[in-house]
């Protein structure tokens, strides 16, 4: 199999599996075999798959917490500044800093900023939008959004070598193995 001259390098090796269960098992074995730069692709979230490829650090909750706090604090401070400092209005003799009236806007701003942080934080941490990604160079990968399951060992992994990794993946009994041009 000669390398195509169009592509200067190889992104990794891709193995295709038929079921979620096979993918989770294969991911476990690959990770245990010492491959660290790997990824698994599936048409729906699979419990335990992220752990199987050694992914534990999920910073989305932290981003949402920070976003929510910023939203809530800025909402309250805005109201305090408007109602008590820059534009004090006497409404029925209430104190200028009438905090019970400020709870609702504070709450809504917490939700707004928290929710937007969840979505945009998740997209940013995932590196999306991403207009080009090498995995799509494998025609079979179209099925990853429908019914098939894929495992990729990246060529940047220190343990990666074209022939050795291929024979290792072969041992996991995949449906097919393909080289992913970068």
């Amino acid at each position: 199999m000669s390398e195509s001259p169009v592509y200067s390098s190889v992104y990794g090796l891709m193995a295709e599996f038929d079921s979620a269960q096979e993918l989770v098992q294969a991911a476990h074995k690959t990770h245990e075999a010492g491959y660290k730069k790997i990824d698994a692709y599936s048409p729906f979230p699979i419990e335990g798959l992220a752990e199987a490829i050694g992914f534990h650090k999920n910073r989305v909750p932290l981003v949402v917490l920070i976003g929510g706090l910023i939203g809530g604090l800025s909402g309250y401070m805005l109201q305090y500044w408007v109602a008590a400092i820059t534009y004090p209005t006497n409404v029925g003799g209430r104190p200028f800093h009438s905090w019970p009236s400020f709870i609702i806007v504070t709450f809504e701003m917490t939700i707004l900023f928290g929710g937007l942080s969840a979505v945009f934080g998740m997209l940013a941490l995932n590196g999306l939008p991403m207009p080009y990604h090498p995995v799509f160079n494998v025609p079979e990968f179209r099925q990853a959004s429908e019914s098939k399951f894929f495992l990729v060992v990246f060529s940047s992994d220190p343990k990666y070598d074209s022939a050795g990794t291929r024979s290792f993946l072969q041992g996991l009994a995949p449906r097919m193995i393909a080289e992913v041009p970068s």
Partner: protein
Amino acid sequence: MATDIQIPLPDRRAPVIEPGHTFSTVTEKISNIVLKRPISLAWIVGFLVVFSIMNMLGVALGYLFIKGTGIWGINIPVGWGFAIVNFVWWIGIGHAGTLISAILCLLRQTWRNSINRFAEAMTLFAVACAGTFPLAHMGRPWLGYWLFPYPNTMNYWPNFRSPLVWDVFAVSTYFTISLVFWFTGLIPDLATLRDRAEHPWVQRLYGILAMGWRGSARHWHRYETAYLLLAGLSTPLVLSVHTVVSFDFAVGIVPGWHTTIFPPYFVAGAIYSGFAMVLCLAIPIRAIYGLEDFITERHLETSAKVMLATHLIVAYGYGMEAFMGWYSGNKFDSFLMWNRLHGPYQFWYFALLACNIVIPQLLWLKKFRVSTGWLWLLSFIVLVGMWLERFIIVVVSLTRDFQNSSWGQYYPTKWDWMTYIGTIGLFLTAMWLFVRILPMISIFELRQLLPEAHVPEAAEVKE
């Protein structure tokens, strides 16, 4: 008929998905509605009808912006009229979408997976219709941005002690969060459409919207966390929105508005009318697009039970209003009840009780919960009833308040009706386009419901 075969099931309820489906068949069935199904003549004719109704809204609003709110039936004492009735009605309808997508997600009610997508779309379109009314009611809608706090040369700021300002924040947050929640749920399905589309431009369009989603395990992990957190944030949000809408009334001193029961009673009413709208849409859509396998009898029956439960809360609210009218000893409150029962809007108050309380009693019977025809009719009646409820709350209270020298009557004009019916056209036009442009059922969440999607504990290799 297939129903003659008795299959022993763990429970006697209908399944969430009919048996025999695989990842591929689920994907194919739903994505083909968007990608393959030819556009029928009936769709085009229907679209022209709803699109014309939507254009009526354009005419009504155009004339309103030229002439001012005097073309409506509002007057002194009834300054709110149709605009606020319709605003509350529409925003209430939206609540079912968020309830289905967020609260039922947190409660792990997996049956929601088949109906959450279009219920969320319904929410968005309903909130868009709702938003039209306060904006049009302002009289000078081009100054609508004055509602938001921003530094300006007039050196003016909003009064944050006013429920109307709270409402601006609640409704705009609600729309924004509903939109991103809906879009987040769509991303993996847009990737499916991108991968299945044949026409290069269609592929590109869905490709841009899918933003390069590739279903990586790392991405799914963060995605699920973000989705769960959004559900957690939307749950108090949806309860707060109708609560704040009810504050628009309850903080005022008008008899019939100034009550502490309003927030829970409004939220229950919102969910009640929202589920009625979900059924009104789901029943024809599942029949037209052959989605009975995914939106099963179970979904219809469960939605009917939610209506049954919320209608009891609403009935309790009506009962409490009457009770407090008597028990408070406040003559204005007791006059309000007398006026509802015997005043000029008496017919509509009894119609409201019939639509919201009496007729829906039929839902206690399973026969009515599983018959699509009956359920559609009952849902439609509930929608009418919930509209009447808001009409009674707004108009009856305002026409006859404390001072009988300032009493009046309210008559909606043709422009009121055109605006109201026009927003129904806007809503239906948006739904009409939605079912053909985006997957109306969440494909990836349906895949998760299939037995093959579950990886048994033992399969995970443990050290």
